[in-house]
């Protein structure tokens, strides 16, 4: 509540409470100062008047209660806490009430507590620091500066807390920003005025492209900035504003492309893909997410022409990819090593059998395609390529049963390092335990995702920990509800040297103690995601360098 002392300033509408307080002359700052003054005085007199203090406690109990209801109308919570704390020291309350009662009404003539001059009391006259009177206008405005300073520091410390909390959510450390990042942000902001990006290195180019994608400013006029003839790899994460001609530009300007990643490419048409098939002769790696306009014949044509050189294919979010397209893929890409289908809705279980014709697969993803997944198909695929498979992602696999774990993964996946079985609600605790217990063919998993595998419990996860503790880097146990703290304790106690990212969201048993243990015992830990863990409070002491995200107490 900043007052500018003396009242001819125009003021906007205020709440009823503010008006009430101002009328009565109740000033939060004055109350606090008065309290602090009397605290000081009390501490000095404490030795002498201890007995008196005891007497005053009992006798003024009544007065205190009545006073508390009317007088302690302080706006800030901090003050309320302070007044609760000092319930034992009632001298202050007494004085406070007396003051309130005896405060002179506006219009009366008073003597200033400091300079002893006469002045007329107004609703805005400030109370003296000593609590024993009011100040005239000039003395009151002396303190206005100080009060402003105090407010400023309050605001700045609040901003600081906010920025630290916000940065936490962004998973960034709040550090001094690098000059490169400052420049990149500026360029991204003024991108429409930029003519040519010049020689700034591929890494920075990629960074700018990423920022532009985030700002949705990757458009027809800005995309040209990234197309230089020599580049071999291009990644655009948000192509929603690019028209089909711009997509074609990519191929005309960068014919030497070997790896192309286009996400959110909804405007890409058949003509574009045909053009790519024609021009991009060095292409070996493609990733198209959201190319829903591309029809089957177009896919078939593309694979017919370029299939033989493709090593990595990733297609996501399209319904126009069915058996015929898959057949063309399988027939033309015998050397394919990495295949990823995500939300390719029109493939069925029978179609996926065709994948058995890809003997060189080292990485397979069939995520969010649960209708197409069956135990038998997956087991057959694993029988064929399991021994060389490094990464397996079957997110959203509730249609799969324990058989996949025990008859598919366990016997064949010796080289597996990344395993993602998110939303595997049909997997049972015992089966997971049997998978990992004494799984000697496999040397240890690096990246494991078991989010929302709600039927797994302690036995399964403990078997996983015993198997892969020495190799785990990323572990996601989000929503694995049945876990108890014995598993978390085991995790902390298992010397997980390389564990750096851990997601333990919505696991009820995880509280402050568990999180402290984890941050202490896992030397490489950098990130703990703890959304929905209501038992973690701001008290938890996290080792420096470990970021804990998602605590309820981290408010912005």
């Amino acid at each position, binding site marked *: 509540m900043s007052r500018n002392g003396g009242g001819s300033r125009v003021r906007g509408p205020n709440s009823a409470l503010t008006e009430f307080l101002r009328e009565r002359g109740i000033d939060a700052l004055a109350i606090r100062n008065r309290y602090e003054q009397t605290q000081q005085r009390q501490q000095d007199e404490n030795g002498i008047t201890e007995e008196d203090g005891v007497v005053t406690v009992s006798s003024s109990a009544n007065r205190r209660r009545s006073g508390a209801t009317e007088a302690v109308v302080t706006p800030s919570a901090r003050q309320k806490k302070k007044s609760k704390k000092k319930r034992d020291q009632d001298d202050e309350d007494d004085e406070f009430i007396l003051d309130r009662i005896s405060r002179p009404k506006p219009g009366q003539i008073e003597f200033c507590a400091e300079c002893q001059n006469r002045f007329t009391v107004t609703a805005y006259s400030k109370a003296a620091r000593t609590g024993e009177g009011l100040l005239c206008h000039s003395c009151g405005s002396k303190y206005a500066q100080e009060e402003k300073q105090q407010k400023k520091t309050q605001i700045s410390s609040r*901003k600081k*807390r906010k*920025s630290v909390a916000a940065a936490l959510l962004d998973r960034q450390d709040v*550090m001094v920003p690098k*000059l*490169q990042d*400052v420049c990149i942000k500026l360029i991204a902001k003024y991108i429409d005025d930029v003519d040519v*990006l010049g*020689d700034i290195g591929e890494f920075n180019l990629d960074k700018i492209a990423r920022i532009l994608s985030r700002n949705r400013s990757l458009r027809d006029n800005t995309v040209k900035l990234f197309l230089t003839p020599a580049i071999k790899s291009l990644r655009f994460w948000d192509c929603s504003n690019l028209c089909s001609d711009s997509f074609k530009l990519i191929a005309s300007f960068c014919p030497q492309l070997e790896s192309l990643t286009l996400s959110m490419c909804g405007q890409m048409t058949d003509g574009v893909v045909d053009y790519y098939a024609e021009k991009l002769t060095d292409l070996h790696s493609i990733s198209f997410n959201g190319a829903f306009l591309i029809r089957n014949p177009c896919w078939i044509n593309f694979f017919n022409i370029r299939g033989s050189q493709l090593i990595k294919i990733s297609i996501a979010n399209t319904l126009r990819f069915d058996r015929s397209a898959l057949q063309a893929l399988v027939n033309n890409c015998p050397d394919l090593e990495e295949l990823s289908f995500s939300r390719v809705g029109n493939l069925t279980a029978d179609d996926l059998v065709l994948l058995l014709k890809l003997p060189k697969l080292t990485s397979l993803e069939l995520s969010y395609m649960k209708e197409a997944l069956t135990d038998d198909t997956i087991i057959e695929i694993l029988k064929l390529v399991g021994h060389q498979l490094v990464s397996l992602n079957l997110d959203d696999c509730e249609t799969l049963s324990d058989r996949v774990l025990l008859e598919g993964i366990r016997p064949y996946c010796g080289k597996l390092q990344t395993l993602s079985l998110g939303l595997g609600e049909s997997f049972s605790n015992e089966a997971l335990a049997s998978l990992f217990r004494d799984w000697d063919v496999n040397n240890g998993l690096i990246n494991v995702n078991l989010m929302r595998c709600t039927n797994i419990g302690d036995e399964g996860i403990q078997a996983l920990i015993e198997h892969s503790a020495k190799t785990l880097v990323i572990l996601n146990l989000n929503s694995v509800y049945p876990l108890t703290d014995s598993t978390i304790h085991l995790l902390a106690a298992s010397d997980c040297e390389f564990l750096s990212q851990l997601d333990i969201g919505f696991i009820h048993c995880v509280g402050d103690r568990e999180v402290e243990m984890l941050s202490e015992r896992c030397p490489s830990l950098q990130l703990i995601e703890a959304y929905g863990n209501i038992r973690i409070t701001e008290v938890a002491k996290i080792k420096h360098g470990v970021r804990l995200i998602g605590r309820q107490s981290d408010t912005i």
Partner: protein
Amino acid sequence: MSQGDSSADSEYVLLVSSDGYEYSILRKAAMVSGTLQRMFEGAGLESQSKRVDLKDINGILLEKVCEYLYYNLKHQNNPGNIPEFDVPPEMALELLVASDFLDV
């Protein structure tokens, strides 16, 4: 350019731009830049002469870079509530190239 100072805190180094402007800054500030750090701590000519000739960076850019080095030094230990570092947009591209070279 103060030399021969035993305390590392007041040691200065010289950065020379392509058009001959010379900027004398604290050694500590120069160390914010990875490239400059390597230059001054390595076995090369620069570490002895305490002087670097930056033939690709002109005077105006170099001045901005020095400004940033001090800004970084000043706020290193104060996370949260760091004031923004202003850069005129016309300078942004060239400054990016320079800062990329200087690893800063």
